[in-house]
């Protein structure tokens, strides 16, 4: 489902008429390029900007300018005769009058005008209007003049423009028209009317919006959360899964940037991203919590009285049962590592050495007994989370060993450049999404667990300042090892835009190299990357 919404994806803004916004986007991207060296990139950017400014990708053509002299006056002084111009090259080719190959009569004119009037109005189509338009369309399509190519092309272009002009007013008719003209097959052809791919995108966008807004949809709750703040009728947003939310945000960002800008609330999205990254988000205030807890306690008594399942609903007993469940999950999780017992790592040692991680695991393992796999995955995600949090502060031998593992992972992910690049850019976020953690090799998973088990104690974990320069000879080795040309390697290392495959190869080689560089140098360079 990754359709492009050219030219807006290249400019990285939502479709807009605001010329200033378009130019600002162009300016930002141009200054990030060396436009004289990177010809292709500059051509794409410039082409996209000119197309965006022309307004054709929002609205059909503006009427042609009739005057042929743009107001330019005569340079000659008054009274002088225009002398014969000696070397004036012929500037304008003689215009050809359009010649129609079919005849149109008044009925046709009336029909075309009526259809244009109906479609170019504001608001929604009423059922009568829709029916009328349907009838007109049938008449048009059944007409035998459609066999003439000129007429066919003219009607196609005209219908495309009409539908695009006041979209979504004509949205209901779009499938019928698209089917008749076989637009689905031709949308990527050169020379097709630009409104056609636009219509497809818009149609898909509309249907996506409709789906997301329907309560039954899988991502409905997450969508409402992002678009409006809270689903109506809920007091607080429980049951919104951080990974699902992350997934939704990433997908929309990548494939539907215009949805992002028109329908999201940016503050809410920022909050969710912070939450997903594990930061602290200011939640409801103290008084809200007090009010909620009072309310909850009063509700609890009702629930407790409403005894149906036969289980003891005593809160303390409930907590104990849950804790027992959690401990069972944790124990089986640790047991899933074959070397854990041999290395002397168990539930007790974890509780003793790293109480913080133990309590984290307890929280995520808080699931019914049957869901072992789910619990295991959730716990592994948390372990990975903590691991990447603390790795910056561990001694360099640990970091170098980690680099070795990462290199292996990147090697395995090489076939999927997108995933590889995401893993490189932010392994924490990557591993929190869907089932990515399952793809990590068991050795690495055990490694993460061991490190967390051994190192994550009660001290303060400071933030590491990520600044370091890569010495030239390392870059040279990098270029040789990865096989990526120098300019692109520099782009990757300095964080400028680079293709996923490049990032994958460069950073993969970098991690491989790290294990070969003397410790002192590695210690200096590493912070830039972890």
């Amino acid at each position, binding site marked *: 489902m990754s359709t492009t919404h050219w030219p807006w994806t290249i400019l990285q803004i939502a479709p807009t008429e605001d010329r200033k916004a378009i130019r600002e986007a162009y300016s930002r991207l141009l200054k990030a390029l060396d436009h004289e060296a990177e010809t292709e990139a500059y051509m794409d950017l410039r082409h996209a900007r000119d197309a965006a400014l022309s307004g054709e990708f929002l609205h059909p053509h503006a009427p042609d300018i009739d005057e042929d002299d*743009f107001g330019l006056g005569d340079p000659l002084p008054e009274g002088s005769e225009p*002398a014969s*111009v000696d070397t004036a090259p*012929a500037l304008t080719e003689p215009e050809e009058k359009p010649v129609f190959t079919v005849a149109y009569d008044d009925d046709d004119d009336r029909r075309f005008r009526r259809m244009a009037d109906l479609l170019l109005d504001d608001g929604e189509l009423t059922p009568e209007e829709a029916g009328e338009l349907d009838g007109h369309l049938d008449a048009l399509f059944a007409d035998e003049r459609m066999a003439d190519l000129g007429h066919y092309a003219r009607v196609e272009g005209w219908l495309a423009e009409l539908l695009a002009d006041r979209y979504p007013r004509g949205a209901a008719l779009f499938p019928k028209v698209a089917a008749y003209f076989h637009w689905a097959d031709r949308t990527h052809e050169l020379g097709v009317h630009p409104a056609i791919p636009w219509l497809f995108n818009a149609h898909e966008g509309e249907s996506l919006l409709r789906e997301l807004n329907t309560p039954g949809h899988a991502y409905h709750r997450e969508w409402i959360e992002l678009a409006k703040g809270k689903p109506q009728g809920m007091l607080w947003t429980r049951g919104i899964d951080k990974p699902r939310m992350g997934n939704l945000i990433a997908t929309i960002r990548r494939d539907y940037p215009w949805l992002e800008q028109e329908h999201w609330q940016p503050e809410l999205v920022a909050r969710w991203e912070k939450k997903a990254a594990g930061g602290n988000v200011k939640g409801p205030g103290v008084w809200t919590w007090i009010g909620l807890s009072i309310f909850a306690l009063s509700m609890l008594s009702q629930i407790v009285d409403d005894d149906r399942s036969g289980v003891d609903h005593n809160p303390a007993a409930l907590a104990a049962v849950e804790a027992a469940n959690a401990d069972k999950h944790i124990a089986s999780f640790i047991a899933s590592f074959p070397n854990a017992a041999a290395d002397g790592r168990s539930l007790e040692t974890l509780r003793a050495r790293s109480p913080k991680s133990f309590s984290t695991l307890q929280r995520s393992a808080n699931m019914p007994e049957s869901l072992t796999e789910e619990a295991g995955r959730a716990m592994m995600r948390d372990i990975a989370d903590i691991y990447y949090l603390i790795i910056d502060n561990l001694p360099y031998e640990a970091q170098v060993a980690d680099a070795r593992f990462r290199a292996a992972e990147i090697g395995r992910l090489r076939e999927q450049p997108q995933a590889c690049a995401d893993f490189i850019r932010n392994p924490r976020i990557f591993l929190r999404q869907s089932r990515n953690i399952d793809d990590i090799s068991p050795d690495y998973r055990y490694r993460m667990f061991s490190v967390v088990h051994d190192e994550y104690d009660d001290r303060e974990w400071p933030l590491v300042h990520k600044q370091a320069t890569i010495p030239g000879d390392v870059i040279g080795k990098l270029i040789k090892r990865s096989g990526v040309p120098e300019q692109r390697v520099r782009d990757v290392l300095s964080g400028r835009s680079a293709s996923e495959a490049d990032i994958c190869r460069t950073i993969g080689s970098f991690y491989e190299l790290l294990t070969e560089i003397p410790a002192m140098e590695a210690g200096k360079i590493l912070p830039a990357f972890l």
Partner: protein
Amino acid sequence: MIVGIDLGTTNSAAAIFENGETRLIPNALGDLLTPSAVAILPDGTTLVGKPALNHWVLKPAEAVTSFKRFIGTNRTIKIGRYAFKAEDLSAIVLRSLKEDIESATGREVTEAVITVPAYFNDKQRKATRRAGELAGLKVARLLNEPTAAALAFGIADKEDREPFLVFDLGGGTFDVSIVEMFDAIVEVRASSGDNRLGGDDFTNAIVAHWTQKHDFPSDVRRNLLDARLFQVADMARRILTDQPEASVRLTLPERQFDLSISADEFEGLSTSLLARLRDPILRSLRDSNLRIEALSDIVLVGGATRMPIIRKAITKMFGRFPNHLVHPDHAVAIGAAIQAGLVARNAALDEVRLTDICPFTLGIEVTEHDSHGRLRAGLFSPIISRNSPTPISRTNSYSSMSDNQTHIKLNIYQGESREVANNILLGTMEFPIPKKPAGQVSIDCRFTYDSSGLLDVDVTIPETGETRSMLIADDSETLTAEQIEERREQLAALKTHPRDVAENQYVVGWAARLYEEFIDERREHIGRMLLHFEGVLETQDPRAIEEARGAMTTALQEIEQDQRL
């Protein structure tokens, strides 16, 4: 160090970008503008600039001016015993400028940004680049003159600017560009021009007028008459900038003519030239889809825009007064210096970007079937359309015309006409193709137009997989690196006066010219002054020489005023 050089038809100038601003560099005589003139004395000494101009009036066979008009052609120009092409002469001027900068700043000049008219074609651009190499400079970029002026105009305050029009009327060329500025990005939207319209044409109009009115003697050597007539006509044209009437005296051996012209007469003479101003402007407006009201400014560049008839024509065409903020003679050199700063990635220009366009359509000659199935040859197939932003790279595919065709000959043209006969041929490329039935061999022709406006053509034959790169197959212009080095050394070997001597020699030359141009007692007076000055030179006392030179200069200036009656 990298510098910016305005290599103009009439005058050249050089500037550098340092400490966040541009600075024009004076030449050995202390002037910011160096006339583009070269003279070679019988003993082989080469003069450049004002001394060369003086010598041209005295002995036109030993000097040449306005050679920019011939650059890019094979035309050889004879100077005394030597024969040069226009690019060699430009190289001599460039070398002199290079030495002036090195002496004024104390730093070595290795690279340069050289300006060319926006409407210069590929041959002319390549010749200009060769001229730079022959002068020992690496030409980092060729910059279009109106774009340079736009840079100078816009970078002054780095404010956003709605589209403005640059009207560049120089000595030999006319360029129009429409440029806008946004967020320190200078973007050219359209460019057009006329390579055969400049201040010199207006001067020639006066010459033609006088030739018709007066009976000039036919026994005077042709080039002497032409040179002297042109010189006084040029002087008259400049006088008409401030005064309603100009009167000058033409001095030929043993005869004198008093010539005059009024501003009204001049206006009448120039109507056909003025009419030619309109088309390039209209084309640029049409290409950028702007009405004149939408232009925020009209920027005048080039000495010829000082003429009142030009100012009037502009006011009439645009319905408003043009902008006088840039110095018409300096703007292009300043813009070139800014571009030099950009090439050197000077920190003060960090936010600035410049994007230019290709001002004409480039393509190849093709044969097509018309609607009746007949073959029509000599048609133009555009590959890069005009006003495409540069750098740009476009590929088109073509196929063979006849069965068992063994070669394809690619003619590369520049122009707007549907028929190649009306366009300019840039070069030819011929290469073998596999023998196949008609239409079965296809070639991919890729045109790359870089930001200097230089064209590269690559042809790939997908079947065989081979690729060929275009070298303009015009023999005299393909020089190998060794040949260029050889010629550069030849040019460098031309003798010039040592710098400390140049100023004195200039004054002597000037006096010599005036000596010839006057008769009666003023001539004697000049002769006496000259004798005295040469005596002072012999003493080799620097202070005395400087004083004498100053006095001589003042006296000569007064006498020159008298040449105008």
